[in-house]
C-alpha cells in the first residue's frame, strides 16, 4: 500500500507521524482514497492543501493533522455560491450597515427599501446568475490553517473540552463553513466577540448554560424576523449577516451556529425541510452531544410546550389562558402545535446513503433537496417516529414522501424503491404524506395521500368523487393559539350608552362574559335612545394592550351600523380608533396606553338612536369565512386538486357537498395566502 500523501517528500521522518495519524484516525476520518480524490480534484490548488498537511506533520500536531485530513477529504462536497453578480446584490448589506449606524433604529421596512433601490438598479436577481465555486479550488493554506488553529484554540480552552469528542469537534466545531455561503475569514472575530459574551452565562463553565445563553442572546439581539430573499435570494455570507442583520430563522440560526462554533461549542445547523401542518420550513441550532434532555416531540395536539425542544413547534404561552372545549364553538378547535415530519442536519462529512443514491441513480430521478449529500437525517433526536412502507402505483428508482404546501407538495424524505414498495424510516407521525416519484423536474403522485396516526396506522384518503357528504366550513387555515389569545382581552368588557361624551351617567347595554371568537352579536334590550355609545375594555388588562377588530352598534330599526364622531383613548400609530369601526376584520384598534381603554361614537348634539344589537370581533387572522369574499373548495382526486365550485360567502360559514373521506383545500380567491388542507370529521374541519 503506497502512502498517498507524505508530509514532506524530503524529510522521511515526517512520513511516520503522517502515516500514524492516518492509521489511528480511520474511525473518524474518511479513507485515504477520499483524501487522495480530494487532492486530485483540487488541481492547481493542490499545493495549498498539501501545505496544510505538511504544516501539521509534526507529531505534536497529530490531532490537527487529523482535523486537516477530515476537512480536505470532505472538501469536494462543498462549494460557495458567489460570483460578481452575487457581490453586486450583496452591496445591499453594506448600505444597510451604513444606514444602521446613523439611525438609532433601522426598521425592517427601511432595510427592505435599500433592497428595492438595488432592484431598481439591477433588476430582480435570478439565482442562476450565481456561480458554484468549489472549495478545493479556492481554499488557501492560510485560510485552512487559521481555521484549524482557532477551532482547536476555542475547543481546547473551553471548560467542557473533555466532554466533546474529537468526532463531534470535527463535524460541529471545526468546519470553516456551515453551508454554501461565500468564503470569509469569520472565526477569529466571532471568537473575540463570544469571549465577551460567554462570561455572562449563568454558569460559564457549563456547556448547556453557555449554549442556552448564547443561543438566546444571538437570537434576541439580532431580531432577524423577515424574509429577505426577494432582494438577496442567495445564501448570505457571515459578513452579509453581520452587516445586514436581516432575514428569517435560517439566517439567525446560521449566524448563531457559526458564533457558537467559534466559541468551542459543538453546534449543529438543523432544519425541518417543511412543517407537516403549516407552510414553510424551519432552521435551528442544536447542541450536539450528551447535553440535551431525552424528551421527544410527539406531534400530538396537546398543550404541552415544546418550544425548548424545537422553537416554533408550539405557540403556547404558558401564562395565557388554556381554552377548554366548552369555551370554544363546537366546530372549532385550537392547533397548539406545528407537526414535524423530518429533521435534517447540515454536516461537513458526506452522508454515505445519500452519496450512494446520487452516485448510482440517474440525476433526473433525484429532486434538488437530496442532491446535497452533506445533510443527515436526525429526526430521531427530535420526535417520536416510525417506519412507513408505501405501495406505489407507478415506480422509479427512488420515491419520496411529500407534505402539503400551497406552492405544491414538498418532499421531506427519500427512499430507494424495491419493486413497487418504498420504505421510509424515521417518519414523523400525525402528518399527511403524499408518496411521489420525481422525474424531469416534477413530483408525480405515486399513491393516495394518507395520514400517519400516533399508532403508526396509515389512513388513506379517498380520491373518488362519490359518495358525497355535506360540509360546513368556517375557516381556511388552522386556528392557532396566538389568534385565540386575542379573545382574552375582550372577556369582561362591556358596552355602554350615554347622552354626553364624558359618559357621565352611562347605561349598560351588554357585557362580554365569554371568550368571543370572530364576529359575535349580542341583542340589546334597552328601549331608550342615546347620543353616545362605547366599548369599554376589561379593567387592568394583562398580557396584551386593549385591542379589538370591529364594533358595530346596530340601529334597532334598520340593523345598520351607526356612524358618528369617534371617541375614546387614542390608539397607537396604525391602529387608531377608526380601525374599530371600519367594517374590516383585518384592522384593529390598540390602546396607546395599553390598559383601561375605551372607544365609541358620538352621534352629535341633538341626535339619538336606539341600538338593537351589537356586533363585535376580536383581533384575528381573518382566516375565518368573510362575507362577500370569494372561496373555492377543492378535493384531491389522486393526481390533482379538483374544484367543487366557487362561492361568494353570505355569512360566516360556507356549505359544500364533497366526497366522503376526502382531502380538501379551501382557497380564498379574494386574497390571502394562509391556507391548509383538511379532512372532515364529526362536523369539524381537521387540519393537516
Amino acid at each position, binding site marked *: 500500500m503506497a502512502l498517498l500523501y507524505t508530509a514532506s517528500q524530503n524529510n522521511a521522518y515526517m512520513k511516520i507521524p503522517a502515516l500514524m495519524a492516518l492509521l489511528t484516525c480511520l474511525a473518524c476520518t474518511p479513507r485515504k482514497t477520499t483524501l487522495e480524490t480530494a487532492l486530485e480534484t483540487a488541481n492547481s490548488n493542490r499545493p495549498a492543501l498539501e501545505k496544510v498537511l505538511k504544516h501539521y506533520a509534526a507529531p505534536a500536531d497529530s490531532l490537527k493533522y487529523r482535523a486537516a485530513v477530515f476537512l480536505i477529504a470532505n472538501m469536494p462536497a462543498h462549494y460557495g455560491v458567489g460570483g460578481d453578480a452575487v457581490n453586486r446584490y450583496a452591496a445591499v448589506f453594506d448600505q444597510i450597515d*451604513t444606514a444602521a*449606524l*446613523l*439611525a*438609532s433604529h433601522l426598521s425592517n421596512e427601511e432595510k427592505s427599501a435599500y433592497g428595492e433601490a438595488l432592484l431598481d438598479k439591477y433588476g430582480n436577481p435570478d439565482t442562476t446568475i450565481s456561480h458554484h465555486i468549489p472549495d478545493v479550488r*479556492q481554499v*488557501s*493554506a*492560510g*485560510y485552512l*490553517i*487559521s481555521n484549524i*488553529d*482557532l477551532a482547536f*484554540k476555542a475547543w481546547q*480552552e473551553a471548560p467542557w473540552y473533555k466532554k466533546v469528542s474529537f468526532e463531534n469537534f470535527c463535524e460541529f466545531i471545526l468546519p470553516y463553513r456551515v453551508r454554501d455561503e461565500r*468564503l*470569509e*475569514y*469569520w472565526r*477569529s*472575530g*466571532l471568537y*473575540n*466577540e463570544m469571549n465577551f459574551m460567554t462570561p455572562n452565562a449563568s454558569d460559564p463553565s457549563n456547556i448547556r448554560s453557555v449554549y442556552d445563553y448564547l443561543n438566546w442572546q444571538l437570537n434576541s439581539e439580532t431580531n432577524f424576523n423577515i424574509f429577505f430573499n426577494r432582494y438577496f435570494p442567495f445564501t448570505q*455570507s*457571515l*459578513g452579509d449577516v*453581520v452587516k445586514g442583520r436581516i432575514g428569517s430563522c435560517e439566517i439567525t440560526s446560521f449566524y448563531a451556529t457559526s458564533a457558537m462554533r467559534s466559541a468551542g461549542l459543538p453546534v449543529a445547523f438543523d432544519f425541518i425541510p417543511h412543517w407537516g401542518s403549516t407552510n414553510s420550513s424551519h432552521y435551528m441550532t442544536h447542541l450536539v452531544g450528551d447535553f440535551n434532555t431525552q424528551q421527544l416531540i410527539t406531534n400530538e395536539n396537546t398543550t404541552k410546550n415544546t418550544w425548548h425542544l424545537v422553537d416554533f413547534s408550539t405557540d403556547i404561552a404558558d401564562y395565557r389562558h388554556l381554552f377548554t372545549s366548552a369555551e370554544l364553538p363546537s366546530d372549532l378547535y385550537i392547533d397548539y402545535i406545528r407537526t414535524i415530519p423530518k429533521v435534517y442536519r447540515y454536516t461537513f462529512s458526506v452522508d454515505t446513503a445519500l452519496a450512494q443514491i446520487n452516485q448510482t441513480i440517474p440525476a433526473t430521478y433525484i429532486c434538488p433537496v437530496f442532491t446535497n449529500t452533506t445533510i443527515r437525517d436526525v429526526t430521531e433526536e427530535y420526535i417520536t417516529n416510525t417506519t412507513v412502507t408505501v405501495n406505489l402505483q407507478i415506480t422509479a428508482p427512488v420515491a419520496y414522501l411529500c407534505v402539503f404546501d400551497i406552492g405544491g407538495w414538498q418532499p421531506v424524505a427519500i427512499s430507494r424503491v424495491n419493486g413497487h414498495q418504498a420504505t421510509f424510516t424515521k417518519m414523523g407521525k400525525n402528518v399527511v404524506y403524499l408518496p411521489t416519484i420525481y422525474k424531469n423536474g416534477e413530483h408525480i403522485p405515486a399513491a393516495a395521500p394518507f395520514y400517519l396516526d400516533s399508532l403508526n396506522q396509515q389512513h388513506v384518503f379517498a380520491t373518488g368523487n362519490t359518495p358525497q357528504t355535506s360540509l360546513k366550513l368556517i375557516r381556511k387555515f388552522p386556528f392557532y393559539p396566538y389568534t385565540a389569545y386575542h379573545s382574552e382581552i375582550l372577556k369582561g368588557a362591556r358596552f355602554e350608552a350615554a347622552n354626553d361624551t364624558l359618559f357621565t351617567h352611562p347605561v349598560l347595554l351588554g357585557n362580554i362574559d365569554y371568550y368571543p371568537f370572530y364576529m359575535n352579536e349580542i341583542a340589546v334590550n334597552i328601549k331608550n335612545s342615546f347620543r353616545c355609545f362605547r366599548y369599554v375594555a376589561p379593567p387592568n388588562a394583562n398580557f396584551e394592550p386593549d385591542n379589538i377588530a370591529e364594533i358595530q352598534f346596530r340601529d334597532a330599526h334598520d340593523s345598520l351600523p351607526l356612524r358618528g364622531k369617534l371617541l375614546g383613548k387614542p390608539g397607537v400609530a396604525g391602529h387608531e380608533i377608526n380601525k374599530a369601526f371600519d367594517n374590516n376584520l383585518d384592522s384593529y384598534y390598540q390602546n*396607546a*396606553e395599553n390598559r383601561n381603554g375605551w372607544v365609541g361614537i358620538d352621534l352629535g348634539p341633538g341626535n339619538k338612536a336606539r341600538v338593537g344589537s351589537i356586533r363585535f370581533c376580536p383581533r384575528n387572522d381573518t382566516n375565518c369565512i368573510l362575507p362577500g369574499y370569494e372561496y373555492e373548495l377543492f378535493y384531491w382526486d389522486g393526481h390533482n386538486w379538483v374544484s367543487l365550485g366557487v362561492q361568494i360567502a353570505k355569512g360566516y360559514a360556507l356549505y359544500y357537498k364533497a366526497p366522503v373521506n376526502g382531502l380538501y383545500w379551501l382557497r380564498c380567491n379574494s386574497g390571502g395566502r394562509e391556507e391548509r388542507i383538511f379532512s372532515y370529521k364529526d362536523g369539524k374541519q381537521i387540519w393537516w
Partner: protein
Amino acid sequence: MKNIKFLFFIYAISLISCNSNPEKQALLQAKAVYHISDMSYLIAVNNQLAATHYATSLPPDTALYAYIYQQFSLPAELNRLMTNHQIKADSTLYSLFPAIQSHQLKIKDLVCVPASQDEFKLFTENNIQQMIRTILHSSPVSGTSDVEALFNHLYQLDKTFDTEGNIYLPPNDGIPQVFPGWYTRNLLSFFGWRIFKYEKQTILWQCFVNSKTTVLLLKFMDQHIFIATTYPTGKLPSPFDNNTNDLLRSPIALSVMQQLLRPNPLFHLKDLLNHAAFAERNGDSTQAKTYYTNYRTATGDSILSRYANQPAIAATGYIPDNINVFIPFQLDSTTHLQVIGGGQVMATDDYNNAPYQYDNIQFFIHSCAGKPGGDKKDTRVYHFNYRFNKIGGVRDDRLPDSWMKQTRIRYGWDDPTDTTYVLEAAIPWEELPGAQLPPSGLLCANIFIGDSDWNENQRESILSWATKPGQNWEDPATFGTLSFRKPGNGIYSPYTTQPPLVDGKPDTVWQNAAFSAINQPYSNQVSSRDISARFKTLHDHHYLYLLVEVTDNCKNKTGFITKDKCWIEDASTRELVWKLNADSAGPTPWFIREQRISLPAGQYILRYLSDKGYSNEGWYGKPPVNNIYGAALYSISK
C-alpha cells in the same frame, strides 16, 4: 549592440526591482527629502528579506538596542511559552503579583495588553517588562552590539511571530475578512507594538527615540511587510513630538504609508506638518511659516492647525475604528485647557418615549400645600429637557407622558459657562393646579435634576429639592412648600411687579428672590463635580416664574448620541470630569468641538472609545474636512 542589450537588461531589472520594492523607495525618498545622512534598514516581505542596508557610519547605540531587544523579545517569548503550554495563559497575575488587586487579569494580558479601565496603572511599559521578566525568571538582556545584529534579531523574531501558529496574522489570499483587525480591538499594546489602523488594514508600529538615534519599526499585518529602520535623530520630527503619539508625524513612516496605502488628504496634511516641523527645527522659520500657513489654509484654518507646533497636554493621535485609548496626564496646578476633538454623532428621537433619560429638569407641583394627604394622581409634572425645543407634561393620570402641543408656558435656556446651564420658565397660573394663584398662598412642589453623563440617553442620577430617596416621586406629602405671601413658610416666592424676560438670562428682578439648593440625591450618589443645582422662584398675577441653575460636568443635549466617546476622567477616582459632546447632527455624521475648560491640579486620563465606524474608510458619511481624528488638549492662558 550587445552592450546596449545588456544595459537594457540591467535597466529592466532595476525597474522591476524598484517596482517590487516600494517600501525601499519610500525610505530612500524620505531620506533624500529630509537630508538624512545615515539610514540603516531591513525590509522583509512575506517573511523573506527584501532589502537591507547598514550604514557603516552610524555609531551603534547599544543601550537603546538592549531596550528594544527586551521590548520585543519578552512578549513574544511569553507567547511562545503559552503556545507550548509551558505556562498557563489563563493564570491570573494576582498569583504572581499579589499587589495586583484584580483577579481578572491573566498572563496573556501582558502580551495583548488590554486598555483596561481598572488596572491601567499597572500597564506602563516598564511594569510589563518587569512582570514578564519575573514570570520568565530572567534578568534584563544586555542587548546587541550593532544594528545589523539587532535588525536580524528583530527580523527572526518577527518571522517566528508570523509563522509559529499565529492566529492573528491574516493570510494574504484574497478571501475577505468579516472582522478586519479583530485582534487589536480594545488593546493598548499588542506584543509590544503600538497599534495603528487605517481603512481596514492594521499597521503595528513602535518608535524608540533618544537624542542620538531613532529606531522605527513598522509591521503591515495585512500586507505581510516588516520594516526596521534606524537613523540619527537629528532634526527629524518623531511620532512623540509635542506629545501627540501620532505615527504620521514621523516622515519616514508617513512616506512608507503613502507608498503602501490608498492616498488620502490626511497624508498630505501630515506631510505639510512634518515639513513645517522639520524646517522649524532646522532654523528656517520663513519656510516653516509658509508650511504652517499652507497647513492652516488646507485645514480651513481649523483651530487644531493653530496649535500645530505647540506641545499638547494630552492627545489621542489618529483615532481608528474600535479603539480604546487612554492617555494619562498630570496637571501641577489649575490649568486652563483648550480642548479640540471630533467624532461621530447620531440624531435620534428616542426622547419621545423617555425624555427624562436625558439631562432634564422635572418640576412637580400640587395644590395641597398646607393640607396634608393630597392625592398623588393630581400631581402635575413638567419636563424641561436641556436645550430642547419642546416641554413635556403630565397633566393628570389619564394622559401619558407627552410633549405639550398647546401650552402658554414660556421658557428659555442659557449656558453661562461650559459646565453650567440655566432654565428660566414662566408657567401661567391657569396651567397650574387650581388654575389660579392659590388662595392659601401656598403650593407644594419638588424639582428633580436628572443627569446623564457618558450615555446621553441614560439617566445616571437624580438630584431632588425635597423628595427623599425611597419616597414616591408623585406623592405631594414628600414635596417642599412654595410660599407666595411671606417668608418663613417654605421657600418664599416673591411677587414681582416687573415680569422677567424669559430668555435664560436672569434679569435684575431675580435679585429679589433667594436661591435654594437642590442637593438631595434621589437616585444614585453624585458628587458636586458631577452635578449640583439651585433654584429660585418669583410670581405675579399671571405667572409663576422659575429659575434653575445647574452645574453639570457633562451637558447632554436631547436627541444627540455620540457614537464615539471621548472624555477626561480623574485618574484616582475614575470620575468623569468632562466629555466631548455634540449638540447638533447634520447631513454629515461627524462633529468637531472646541471648548475651553479649567481643571485643578491632579492626575487625569484622556479617554477615547471609538466604534466600528470611526476610521478613514469607515466614516459613515464624509470624513471631517480637516485633520481632527481624535482629541487633543492644549494649555492656554485664561
